[in-house]
């Protein structure tokens, strides 16, 4: 479609009364499937007979100020929004021209925990406290609040919320892809049958796609789903910790696309699986980490499951640790990206490590890993205690403590940055994805959005 003749010519565009002069080559930068490029070829093909000269002027009935920004984007590849142009308007215009993806790419730099900048604080309107925030692969996010999951696109416009059928309270949410959201919900006592469980929804419209059901001995049973995980390595499987009514505790496995139950890992004695509050799929070893942590249970329990031969490959528990250390409980855990160790954090914000290659060793607590305690007083005053949480991304380790997220870098996990945003109280959950970090604060129901700006040119 691209005609070489158009490549050389200069082009006059009259946008909403303001005349822009540019080259066809610049407009071709927009790429195929955008209004500017196709308009160019189409008009050129057809107007070739009439216009003839290179100085033909084309009229576009849109806002000139936004067009200036977008033309600048096409010329330089960078996005610079002058103060007078509201972002929402710019996004709308970009959508009109078909340039929204380019704007997004220019807006979000490659994620780097040490160069994060607070870009927005989005106030929530939900009644209760948020239970979880999850980043979408495209830069959007969702926040689970009691009976609803509020979904935001990457421009932080709120979409239609997702309601679990019967408005069952939500325990966890996970993105299968940018357009599909998985929700795990709690079964409420007194309800008959169809309550709680796992379901997939369209993240765009909030519509229910399908439910993931559990059958024991070919009998479908209702259950409470706790934590969710997705095997994104290629197995395309969904995992959830399940608690049935008849002591059917364990990990359910489904095919992500069809919703068919693929497997069920029944809880072996001495392993807490059905109560698990966090699952993490490990691609390297094809295992699933299941953690059941204080204060949900009296003691913390971490295990690695291999579904190919239905075995517990590795496990650790702090049951039976000496009384003097009793108050030092691991409250959150994450498998490091090299797949060789698990990082845990206790309620006093100490980091510790467990070696996955041997099943004997205990936690190696880091001696001087007490984190910055700036907002701690506030966290202590508040009634609701937010326990620390952990995440890894791009070789960095992130830990939320109080109202702060700490960033650790390098092989020895040295504290390199602390992020403190809104006065929304302690951070109850955070999530990294789509080149953004989302931190959900417990008191004001506000979530902060952190981004990495494009690096300086010189």
């Amino acid at each position, binding site marked *: 479609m691209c005609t070489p003749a158009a490549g050389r010519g200069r082009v006059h565009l009259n946008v909403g009364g303001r005349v822009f002069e540019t080259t066809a080559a610049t407009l071709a930068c927009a790429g195929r499937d955008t209004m500017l490029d196709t308009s160019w070829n*189409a008009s050129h093909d*057809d107007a070739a007979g009439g216009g003839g000269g290179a100085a033909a002027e084309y009229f576009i009935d849109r806002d000139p100020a936004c067009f200036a920004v977008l033309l600048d984007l096409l010329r330089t590849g960078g996005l610079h929004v002058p103060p007078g142009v509201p972002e929402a308007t710019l996004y709308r215009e970009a959508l009109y021209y*078909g340039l929204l993806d380019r704007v997004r790419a220019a807006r979000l730099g490659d994620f780097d925990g040490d160069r994060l900048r607070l870009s927005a604080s989005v106030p929530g309107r939900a009644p209760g406290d948020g239970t979880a925030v999850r980043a979408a692969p495209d830069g959007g996010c969702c926040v689970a609040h009691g009976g609803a999951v509020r979904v935001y696109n990457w421009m932080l416009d709120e979409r239609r919320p997702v309601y679990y059928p019967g408005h069952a309270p939500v325990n966890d949410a996970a993105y299968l892809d940018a357009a599909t959201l998985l929700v795990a919900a709690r079964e409420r006592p007194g309800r008959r049958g169809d309550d709680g469980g796992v379901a997939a929804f369209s993240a765009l*419209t909030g519509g229910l796609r399908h439910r993931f059901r559990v059958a024991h001995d070919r009998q479908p049973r209702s259950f409470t789903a706790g934590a969710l995980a997705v095997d994104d390595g290629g197995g395309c499987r969904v995992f959830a910790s399940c608690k049935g009514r008849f002591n059917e505790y364990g990990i359910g496995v489904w095919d992500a696309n069809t919703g068919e139950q693929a497997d069920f890992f029944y809880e072996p004695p001495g392993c807490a699986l059905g109560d698990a509050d966090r699952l993490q799929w490990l691609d390297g070893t094809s295992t699933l980490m299941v953690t059941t942590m204080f204060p949900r249970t009296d003691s913390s329990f971490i295990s690695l499951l291999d579904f190919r031969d239905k075995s517990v490959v590795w496990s650790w528990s702090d049951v039976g640790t000496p009384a003097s250390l009793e108050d030092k409980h691991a409250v959150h855990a994450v498998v490091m990206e090299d797949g060789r160790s698990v990082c845990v954090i206790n309620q006093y914000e100490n980091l510790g490590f467990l070696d996955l290659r041997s099943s004997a060793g205990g936690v190696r607590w880091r001696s001087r890993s007490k984190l910055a305690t700036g907002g701690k007083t506030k966290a202590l005053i508040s009634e609701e205690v937010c326990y620390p949480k952990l995440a890894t991304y791009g070789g960095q380790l992130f830990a939320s403590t109080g109202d702060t997220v700490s960033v650790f870098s390098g092989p020895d996990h040295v504290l390199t940055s602390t992020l403190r945003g809104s006065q929304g109280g302690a951070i109850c959950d955070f999530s990294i994805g789509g080149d953004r970090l989302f931190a959900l604060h417990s008191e004001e129901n506000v979530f902060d959005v952190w981004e990495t700006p494009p690096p300086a040119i010189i």
Partner: protein
Amino acid sequence: MMNGGGGGGQKKRAPRIEPFRHRVETDPKFFDKSWRKLHDAIREIYNHNASGLSFEELYRTAYNMVLNKFAPQLYEKLTENMKEHLEDMRTCIDAAQGGLFLEELQRKWNDHNKALTMIRDILMYMDRTYIPTNKKTPVFDHGLELWRDTIVRSPTIQGRLSDTLLELIHSERTGEVINRGLMRTTTKMLMDLGLSVYQDDFERPFLEVSASFYSGESQQFIECCACGEYLKQAERRLSEESERVSQYLDVKTHEKITAVVVNEMLANHMQRLILMENSGLVNMLVEDRYEDLTRMYTLFNHVPDGLTTIRSVMASHIKDTGKSLVTDPERLKDPVDFVQRLLNMKDKYDNIINVSFSNDKSFLNALNSSFEHFINLNNRSPEFISLFVDDKLRKGVKEANEEDLETVLDKVMMLFRYLQEKDLFEKYYKQHLAKRLLSGRAASDDSERSMLVKLKTECGYQFTSKLEGMFTDLKTSEDTTQGFYASTSSELLADAPTISVQILTTGSWPTQTCNTCNLPPEIVSVSEKFRAYYLGTHNGRRLTWQTNMGHADIKATFGNGSKHELNVSTYQMCVLMLFNSSDVLTYREIEQSTAIPAADLKRCLQSLALVKGKQVLRKEPMSRDIADDDSFFVNDKFTSKLFKVKIGTVAAQKETDPEKLETRQRVEEDRKPQIEAAIVRIMKSRRVLDHNSIMMEVTKQLQPRFMPNPVVIKKRIESLIEREFLERDKTDRKMYRYLA
């Protein structure tokens, strides 16, 4: 009464304030107006008249419709509208006659594609917003679906299209030239409509038609063609189909059409082709038709079980020819030729496999097992192979080139590997080597040693230790002889003939127990001196003279004055020396005075008196056989061009039947201790074992050397039980127990 003023009159209405509602009324005709605009534009586009349209305006119109939530209606209207246009196109295509049909279809397809691109551009905003959230098909793909349903799959076109395509392909197969460009664009269209359309509407019927075409053609060919010819044809058809795929079909069809052709032309006729009389595989093998064989291999590589069949036919052919070779009594007369034929046969098949069967491992294995099978059908193979080596190593001087010899030996080793009775070969090889070494006719020490190394790498140290001992013996003998002459004063030996003594370790050499003959007195005196010297230097040894194995150089002056040096065996020397003292001697006299065993003596006299040109003696009467009363005298008229005359011994290279029997018996005797050793080794480690397992283990252990006979093993076990190495289990008679 207080009636309200104006009683019964009008009720005073409470003033009602209308809420200020500024209803945003959209133009009720907005949708219709906008759609009309797009509708007209689409018509112009289909009429190739788009130049007057403003893209920006149309885009904006569509944008506004979507913005005002009219997207579902727009989508519906668009579908309807495109359908109408396509219906019109279909009428045109239907009207096209004969060969123009495809061209018309192609033209309309291009038109539709171009129009569709423009429509898609206009409706791009809908594609981005409405389509993904509502899970609809994007405009462009939707347009293709409509084309598929209204045109390609319409009842009037669907059948006609596939018939036309198949007809064209058929005429190309029969040699006509068709418009390939048109074929390509048409199949491309089907692929663009989705893989399922291409497969259902074209590929499946295409494969069916092809199958029936090739089944007919192959039937016709096989009746009238030879195998090679037929395979050429099949190869040509295969490459034609490959080219067709590359020219105008989807790549994925390649595998399927190849499978069809292979199935119809090759798999269905496989047995008949391979076994075809006068031209099949056997014929190709016999005539070394490499090209045909290569073709057969590559073609049948596609057929399941194809190579297996070729392989088994080849193997059975090799076995048959090999069997007839080794069992042919004619061939047994000349061992060297016998082995040479085996080598030639091996070379022939090695070449075929290398050149035509791409050095296929499984074919090589089949070749090896076939050779192993038939070589062992003849129990003289070990002897013959050893004789062949003997021939090569003896005549080495003639062959001159050591490298050639080396390759021949390597090849012989291949044959050796096939032998089951390697110990028998060892026996013979030892005999032949001894002869070569003692008669000094080993051509090259290097070649001998290299052969030994080959045997050693093949069978291990044990196999060759005795053979190596033979070489050591020769070396030490040389030193001893030198020592003897150095230590003995020269006066003592002044007149005596020079002797060279080979001291052979008993056991290393294939010595036959033989009666020592009476040596001439000159020799006796010097050999007694040597014995004294030797026993003086080596304590506790015993020397026995093996007069049957030595040789001597004697100077002879004949009656006519001619002088010659005669190279003869020890026996011959003994005979000739007798004539120093008498002129005429009868056979009986000679026998008495020399005490040479009769058979040897006869042979030795024959070689002295009856070989043409080398008649040192004359015999009366002149007959081939030697009777007791025959008399011998020196041939005074003996002449020879050469000063040195070598008198051979009329000796059968091959073993005579009684000798053969003897060798066989000796081998059997030698095997007994080996079998016993194996049994004891096994039982020592296992302690208790049942009969069958012992049999298996023993066979396994001894296989590299020979195939033990189960009856013999059983006898050995019994003998071991007698000697109380083993005992039978008290309860289970089949179990044996090792007694430490």
